């Protein structure tokens, strides 16, 4: 029994054990660490840090797949690693009894793999020290809020995930993915006025919570005047965070297999897809690109198991730029290599970021508001859920500040609303689009933090009913 102390050694030990088994093998090792800081009622609440080692083995036997993910306690010695590998191959043999996988493909070879970071480098880590610069600004924000009868709530996190991927075909790739977010919610002392802001910040340096709170105070002041406005269809200005809420949903629903099988909003009559169809009259491009300098993500795919949109056989496959929308026309769907072989086109996996471009440079959401005759300004959204997969109709609620706009000016806060809108209708009814900026989707910030979106003015946005929530 030999001791294993590095992720690279774990990859090699597992692959060595797999070499004695029939079939092929993929090994992914992911050391991670995270720190988080949470506050409510101007007080820190639950805070902490954690470290973990996730690793999994994928075995391919007779065209079928088994996956076993194990914990650190099985990663420290070659004997326990071998046990995991043997269990994985047993699972693959069990799966082979029901036939070959529908998405079977040859494993990626080194010459086809993505250019990635140096495999031999050690993992990156974070700790609670990541907040050394942030904590004084939070304390300052608390002090100011207590004096001003404001209450602050929020959350900051910093994570480091380092992925090591090796295959029995010789692929060895590595990627370090830092993730950070800061969210701040400010309320008046009587809880009747509320505002929110969030940022995606891979590094915590330079984040000033006190400065974020000052910006939120401006919206709390806007809300001192209230307007009782019924539900209805209104021209509505969406900030980048709200546009991200909708377009992440659109991208998640843009799988090629479902579209080709006739069971998605991107399916067309006669068994075709809607590829090539114009979705908006504006020249907008929606793309995921691992090389995006604002939000770089892994240039290769990792997957524990197959799903409708991802194939486990594609582990290590390069991820390129995927344009869902080019100049307003549906131009791409998420496609594994197996999907490409079955339905045509090139493989096009989805990177972990998303950007909508093509709006007017220099225009932020208040510039769009300035051009409105009468309508609403939404500041954030919540609890978006698909109602009808046929149309992607989505319901959700506005949150922490909706404002009536008249003559290009914010005139007062309205109630919150439940809305029913499809991301496809948001695009179709877009009348004006501003400049793209990095933003954090409030609804999906748990899972998808890397977006760049513009503000958008949407005609006849369906505010379906009034919510009493404040």
């Amino acid at each position, binding site marked *: 029994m030999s001791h294993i102390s590095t992720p690279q050694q774990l990859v090699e030990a597992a692959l060595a054990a797999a070499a004695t088994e029939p079939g092929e093998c993929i090994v992914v090792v992911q050391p991670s660490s*995270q720190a988080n*800081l949470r506050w*409510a*009622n*101007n*007080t*820190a609440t*639950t805070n*902490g*840090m*954690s*470290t*973990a080692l996730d690793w999994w083995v994928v075995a391919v036997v007779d065209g079928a*797949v088994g*996956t076993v*993910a*194990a*914990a650190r*306690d099985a990663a420290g010695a070659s004997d326990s690693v071998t046990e995991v590998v043997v269990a994985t191959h047993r*699972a693959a043999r*069990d*799966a082979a*009894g*029901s*036939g070959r996988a*529908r998405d079977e493909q040859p494993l990626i070879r080194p010459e086809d793999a993505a250019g990635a970071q140096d495999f031999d480098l050690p993992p990156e880590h974070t700790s*609670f020290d990541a907040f050394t610069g942030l*904590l004084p600004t*939070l304390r300052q924000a*608390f002090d100011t809020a207590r004096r001003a009868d404001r209450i602050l*709530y929020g*959350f900051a996190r910093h994570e480091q995930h380092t992925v090591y991927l090796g295959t029995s075909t010789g692929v060895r790739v590595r990627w370090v993915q830092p993730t950070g977010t800061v969210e701040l919610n400010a309320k008046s002392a009587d*809880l009747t006025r509320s505002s929110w802001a969030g940022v995606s910040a891979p590094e915590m340096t330079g984040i000033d919570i006190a400065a974020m709170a000052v910006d939120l105070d401006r919206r709390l002041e806007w809300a001192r005047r209230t307007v009782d406005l019924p539900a209805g269809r209104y021209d509505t200005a969406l900030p980048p965070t709200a546009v991200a809420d909708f377009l992440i949903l659109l991208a998640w629903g843009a799988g090629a297999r479902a579209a080709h099988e*006739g*069971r998605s909003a991107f*399916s067309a*009559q*006669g068994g075709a897809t809607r590829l090539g169809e114009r979705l908006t009259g504006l020249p907008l491009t929606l793309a995921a690109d691992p090389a995006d300098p604002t939000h770089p993500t892994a240039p290769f795919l990792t997957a524990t198991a*197959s*799903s*409708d949109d991802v194939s486990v056989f594609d582990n290590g496959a390069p991820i390129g730029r995927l344009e869902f929308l080019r100049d307003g026309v549906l131009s791409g769907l998420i496609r594994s290599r197996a999907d490409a072989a079955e339905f045509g086109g090139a493989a096009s996996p989805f990177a972990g970021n998303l950007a909508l471009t093509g709006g007017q440079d220099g225009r932020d959401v208040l510039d769009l508001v300035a051009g409105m005759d009468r309508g609403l300004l939404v500041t954030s959204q*919540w*609890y978006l859920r*698909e*109602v009808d*997969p046929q*149309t992607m*109709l989505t*319901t959700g*609620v506005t949150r922490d500040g909706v404002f009536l706009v008249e003559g290009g000016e914010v005139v007062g806060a309205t109630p*919150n609303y439940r809305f029913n809108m499809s991301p496809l209708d948001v695009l179709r009814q877009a009348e004006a689009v501003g400049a793209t900026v990095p933003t954090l989707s409030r609804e999906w910030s*748990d899972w998808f933090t890397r977006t760049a979106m513009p503000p958008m003015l949407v*005609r006849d946005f*369906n505010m*379906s*009913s*009034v*919510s*009493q*929530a404040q």
Partner: protein
Amino acid sequence: MPKLGRVTGSISCPDVDADFLALPLTALADAALAAATAAGAEHADFRFERIRGADIMVRDHALQRSSEAVTSGYAVRVIAGGSWGFAASDEPTADAAARTARQAVAVARAVAALGGERVERADEPVHAGARWCSDYRIDPFAVPVADRIGLLLDRSERLLAGDGVDHTAIGVELVKEQKFYADTAGSTIWQQRVRMQPEFTAITVDTAAGSFEDMTSLAPPVGRGWEYLTDGTWDFDGELARMPGQLAEKLKAPSIEPGRYDLVIDPTNLWLTIHESIGHATEYDRAIGYEAAYAGTSFATPDGLGTLKYGSPVMHVTGDRTVPHGLATVGYDDDGVAAQRWDLVSGGILTGYQLDRVFAHRLGLERSNGCAFADSPSNVPIQRMANVSLQPDPAGGTLDDLVADVEDGIYVVGDKSWSIDMQRYNFQFTGQRFHRIRNGRIEGQVRDVAYQATTTDFWGAMDAVGNPSTYLLGGAFNCGKGQPGQTAAVSHGCPVARFRGISVLNTVREAGA
């Protein structure tokens, strides 16, 4: 109508697995708790978890995935300087446990400098050497992988053989959760729970029209073992046989005319409305703002305890961490508090909250009702949902009895889409099937239905609940809360119930600009 789930046969409660009991967990705990105390912690607890999961999915005629995963690690939580501190690791050595404890104390001291409220907790008796295991008969991880796959493939083939079924998604998610808890007061607790979530979905595609429709099994996720799929607890065979016909009818059903209708809501749908509009609304942490920036707050604030009219007099809701096969059922929570059952809404009045030890103290209670939970060793315990259930009326009617008193209404079956606002007022739900009710009889399906209401109006409009024979324990695996985000499995029982004059939308018209 589908047969509702009932317990069949005897239930035997197995013990915690011997290999888990054999782990040197007390030694790890001793190292951590001693280090925390030496570093100045006023309280410390240690929680080791091993969570085994499996995920199998069959699409159409082929296995799409079969994977298993084990998560293992531990957490040390402390109170130092009046603040919480937390650190987690998966390195199973005494040195690492002690180091992790010191990190937790350092975190507490760092945030204590921010000022604010001090952490204080309600007392709890010491539970030394306690052991608890959930009710199940067949450990799903003892079932050979080939047998698991074979059962799902068989059901997929049977569903695909139905007229009009073009695609299927047949899957199951299995979990075995093992926890060890120890604290500086002297509690040591070993626990083991098993749960599973089946998913059977049929899809029909009208290629010429470019449209499609789907239907998913009404079978709830449960705290049971593999026996759930085979022992008749749920009538899977009957449901699989009925689904193609129900799906074909749904595809051709007329679109609903929006307006106000009397609704008779099946437990397979109502559990989710309970979850969102009662379960989350009666979480005390939300009611006092601890989730204000994320999951939200609650209209049911503490000043309304004992007086807030939540619903009609027939509304009686309990919080329960003891019900057999409940997904939130435990022996002890992650504060080391023994599981309990209590009232949340009595005769339509708000009478209770879900609490952990901090919030019990804040509410002025002597003891927590045991709702602390962390979903993994990497996360800190927060107040999470008990099995929150609407009680049946012993003198209530059957489904037919409730329908008989409806002239013009809709019978709602199965859950699908859901959304509620951040203060738990305004919600919208859809379902798997909607049947028109006319003159006291259930008729054919209608489609494109969503119902929308304000929580207190909705529960105030409930004029009848069914008898115990209509009661079903529904639930979900994926309740989300907290930052970092945590998921929890939770059950909600309810009888069939009737609601007068609820707003119904047509989802196609909602989409049209």
